[in-house]
């Protein structure tokens, strides 16, 4: 049997905590025998919620944390001030090596800031980007960075490309993933100062498969596997992606209900439509990893349900088995040696 992956799970974080978070943990240990979940949060609350389920006892453990960081709290002050919160306690488990990974649907800023402050960056990593998987016509693409580093520098984007490539290849299983930088045109001379300065650096980077610029309209078709940009741009892309997707589905559903004829047609296309929409369901892909830390940190949507929590827990196994942190350190230091 393979080695156990220990996942510290913030049981108090997110709109549906603790019920959906705990259900996600129970689902994960039913699916995988090689996962142990360490639930952090108020012991009594967690015990009560867990008591509704049957599950292999040795695979779920409660670690008491008396405080909760609320969704709207200022992140850095909360991480520094609430030292007995479910987020901080869970991250310290990773820091001490008692857990391999941390998953949270809680306060995004606290998760991002806490990741660096409490777990720490891998030596040589300049910034730690948040990298969600986004559905495309060809499967998925990794959008890196989508929320951690506004005002990034060219050297940061080069590392984002390297770390994103490692994640796509070894966790998602995409061989030699293509990398594109988000731009407003295909030509090398297009773009703002950051893109123009980064482009030649990516071109010269030997451990990635850089294919040039990618325009936002080409991302959904799956034109590249790793989409590199600074966080402001990445966040806009992600939110627009979600917004357009949601609106389109609503409009299609509404138009199908306008007449008897369209209703009959809807019945016929329903199975095909359902399976297509499923491939564009974000909860199928789990949460977004924060890349470049000494342990894995996965941020799931604040509105995550058990399904997304379960997928996020399971995605930690590949991260550990594939020794992603070691690979990132090797790639980043290899580049620095080359440049020095």
């Amino acid at each position: 049997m393979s080695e156990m992956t220990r996942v510290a799970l913030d049981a108090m974080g997110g709109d549906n905590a603790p019920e959906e978070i705990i259900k996600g943990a129970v689902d994960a240990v039913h699916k995988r025998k090689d996962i142990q979940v360490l639930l952090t949060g108020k012991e009594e609350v967690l015990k009560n919620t867990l008591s509704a389920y049957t599950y292999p006892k040795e695979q779920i453990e409660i670690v008491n944390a008396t405080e909760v960081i609320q969704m709207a709290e200022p992140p850095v002050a909360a991480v520094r001030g609430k030292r007995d919160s479910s987020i901080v306690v869970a991250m310290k488990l990773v820091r001490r090596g008692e857990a391999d990974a941390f998953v949270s649907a809680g306060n995004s800023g606290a998760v991002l800031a806490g990741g660096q402050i409490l777990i720490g960056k891998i030596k040589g990593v300049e910034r730690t980007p948040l990298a969600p998987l986004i559905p495309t016509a060809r499967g998925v693409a990794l959008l890196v960075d989508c929320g951690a580093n506004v005002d990034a520098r060219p050297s940061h984007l080069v590392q984002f490309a390297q770390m994103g490539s490692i994640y796509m290849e070894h966790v998602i299983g995409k061989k030699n993933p293509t990398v594109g930088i988000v731009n407003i045109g295909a030509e090398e001379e297009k773009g703002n100062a950051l893109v123009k300065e980064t482009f030649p650096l990516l071109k010269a980077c030997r451990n990635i498969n850089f294919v040039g610029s990618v325009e936002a309209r080409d991302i959904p078709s799956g034109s590249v596997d790793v989409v590199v940009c600074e966080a402001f741009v990445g966040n806009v892309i992600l939110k627009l992606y979600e917004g357009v997707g949601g609106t389109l589905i609503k409009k299609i559903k509404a138009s199908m209900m306008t007449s008897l004829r369209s209703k009959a047609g809807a019945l016929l296309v329903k199975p095909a439509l359902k399976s297509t929409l499923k491939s564009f369901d974000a909860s199928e892909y789990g949460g977004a990893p924060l890349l470049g830390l000494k342990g894995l940190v996965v941020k799931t949507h604040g509105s995550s349900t058990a399904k997304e929590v379960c997928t996020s827990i399971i995605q930690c196994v590949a991260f550990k088995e594939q020794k992603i942190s070691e690979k990132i350190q090797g790639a980043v230091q290899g580049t620095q040696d080359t440049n020095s």
Partner: protein
Amino acid sequence: MEFEKLQEIIAEVMNVTKDEVQPETKFVEDLSADSLDVLQIITEIEEAFDIEIDNEDADKIVTVQDAVDQIKKVVE
């Protein structure tokens, strides 16, 4: 003692040589640290010296010597 340990921690986090970390070195200006880098260093200090530095005191740390002074203040 505090300074040598601190040199090690800062060099590791900021990926610089120990020689680049001197008492007068400024975290942001000289080492290109951002606010999270500084807080990561403070967490490492807290672990290494088994102390807790208040947020208010942490905000006052600009140079390496400031950090040394904070450690001494808490330890004493």
